[in-house]
């Protein structure tokens, strides 16, 4: 397992800047595919799962993708290693659970591309990019798809498109999403309006850690819901050229409104968050995320910064992943219970934001 304390210290590449990073933290495109000739996973025997893995690995090995791809047998991983990969958005919670044959191919060293094998579908191809880079992410994912398809027959019907285990993914099998940081819209009380508007446009809104996770620390994942009857390019154009710029402008306007009309309130809110993070002795993940969100806003607006290297937006953003329990235990290089993690989390954040 190459993900050691070292990579936990390095943070995640997809959190490293990019276009429109003040609002758009990262972009992700995921494709769902199934191979012909094998039942979907709910009906596949362990032997068939192994065959799917073997077929995919054989195909990968014969493409240029093999260079720099690391294969991981997920069922062999410890709970902690699985946790770390989920926190780094390299695999889903679904892939992490269970002990039937399943695998993950990760593009190293930047970890921007992953292929999950035997998740909900035989294949889940994912490309992650920092900032607003949906076009690049789509291009990347589609290229990988082409390479896989060059030697593997995908389950496809002219009517329903790429056939997936769940009809919510059928058609293009594509999920395009961005992670948005919208603290000002929450402070001005407009966030629910934005979430409703996004839902009305057929987008789904989830938290930092996807399905079921609360939108912690004002971070929201916005993604297309519908996968059938709309071409990838249409979904892409709508998200990248219409919806995301609109939401980003809305957030920026809210930030400017706070700065010009409620400067003292804004400064107070941000400085209190920094004060809490700099002095707390025990931190829950929610507290850490919530206050880091405000500190990030402070560094972006110039309310904070210049005083410590830890107060660069980039450094603050990396902490969002590093305060998660798997990363903490990797950094500490020992298993910790909840109380110990709260203590260690506070210590880590204190040290960074000095």
């Amino acid at each position, binding site marked *: 397992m190459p993900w050691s304390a070292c990579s936990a210290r390095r943070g995640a590449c997809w959190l490293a800047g990019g276009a429109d990073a003040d609002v758009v933290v990262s972009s992700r495109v995921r494709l769902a595919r*199934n*191979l*012909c*000739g*094998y*039942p*979907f*996973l*709910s*009906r*596949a025997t362990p032997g*068939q799962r192994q*065959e799917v893995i073997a*077929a995919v690995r*054989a195909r990968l090995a014969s493409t240029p993708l093999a260079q720099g791809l690391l294969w991981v047998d997920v069922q062999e991983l410890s709970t902690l290693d699985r946790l770390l990969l989920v926190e780094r958005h390299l695999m889903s919670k679904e892939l992490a659970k269970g002990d039937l044959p399943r695998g993950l191919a990760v593009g190293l060293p930047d970890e921007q591309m992953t292929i999950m094998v035997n998740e*909900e579908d035989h294949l889940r191809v994912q490309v992650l990019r920092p900032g607003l880079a949906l076009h690049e992410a789509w291009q990347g994912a*589609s290229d990988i*798809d*082409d390479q896989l*398809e*060059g*030697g*593997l*027959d*995908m*389950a*496809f*019907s*002219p*009517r*329903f*498109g*790429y*056939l997936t*285990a*769940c*009809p*919510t993914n*059928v*058609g*293009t099998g*594509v999920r395009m999403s961005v992670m948005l940081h919208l603290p000002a819209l929450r402070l001005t009380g407009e966030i629910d309006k934005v979430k409703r508007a996004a839902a009305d446009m*057929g987008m789904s809104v989830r938290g930092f850690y996807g399905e079921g996770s609360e939108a912690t620390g004002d971070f929201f994942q916005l993604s297309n819901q*519908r*996968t*059938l*009857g*709309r*071409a*990838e*390019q*249409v979904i892409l154009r709508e998200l990248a050229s219409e919806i995301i710029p609109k939401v980003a402008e809305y957030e920026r306007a809210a930030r400017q409104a706070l700065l010009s009309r409620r400067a003292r309130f804004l400064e107070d809110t941000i400085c209190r968050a920094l004060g809490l993070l700099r002095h707390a002795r025990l931190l829950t993940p929610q507290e850490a995320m919530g206050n880091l969100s405000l500190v990030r806003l402070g560094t972006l607006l110039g309310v904070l910064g210049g005083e410590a290297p830890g107060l660069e937006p980039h450094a603050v953003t990396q902490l969002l992943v590093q305060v998660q329990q798997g990363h903490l235990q990797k950094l500490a290089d020992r298993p910790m219970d909840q109380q110990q993690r709260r203590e260690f989390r506070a210590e880590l954040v204190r040290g960074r934001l000095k």
Partner: protein
Amino acid sequence: MKCDCCEREATVHEVSIQHGKRSERHLCEQCAQAKGVLQIGPMPGQAKSVEHPAGPQVARGGEAPQSSVCPACGMTFAGFRQAERLGCAACYVALEGHLLPLIQRVQEGACQHVGKVPKRALGESAGLGQEGGPVVEAGVGVGTGAAEIVARVRGLREELERALSDEQYERAASLRDEIARLVRRVGGGPAL
């Protein structure tokens, strides 16, 4: 005029006015029924013209799915509802009657793929490969020649429509089996 969400001829035309905005829908009977357009009476402020009243095809919608079992993997619609996952690619054909309304509900009414197509499914016709065991190596895949299978399935599906509207249920059943068998070769799992 074509149906808004599939290739069939639109026979149900609906005009609705909501919040002062006028919108039109043109649907085939199957899609109209799946969306509940044929069942619900006109809402206040909503005009509706139904050129072809519900015929035998409408009655069939409720009847056909009851007996549906996927011949490739044994999945039933009840089983799908429980697991929330389909068993194999052939389920999409075998359980289509049940799945279509559900797909349209989660996909905002869409029932026809638009977008990327795997090149191999359209590509060279290198024979259909052998029946049985899963083969995924390049060149001998069960999916080579998929385009022909796909065209054949399309034809069979039209025949199935006709058989159903003529109430030739035995013929319909064997057509459905044949479609499922072909789909299994393009994308289904080995039969249990």
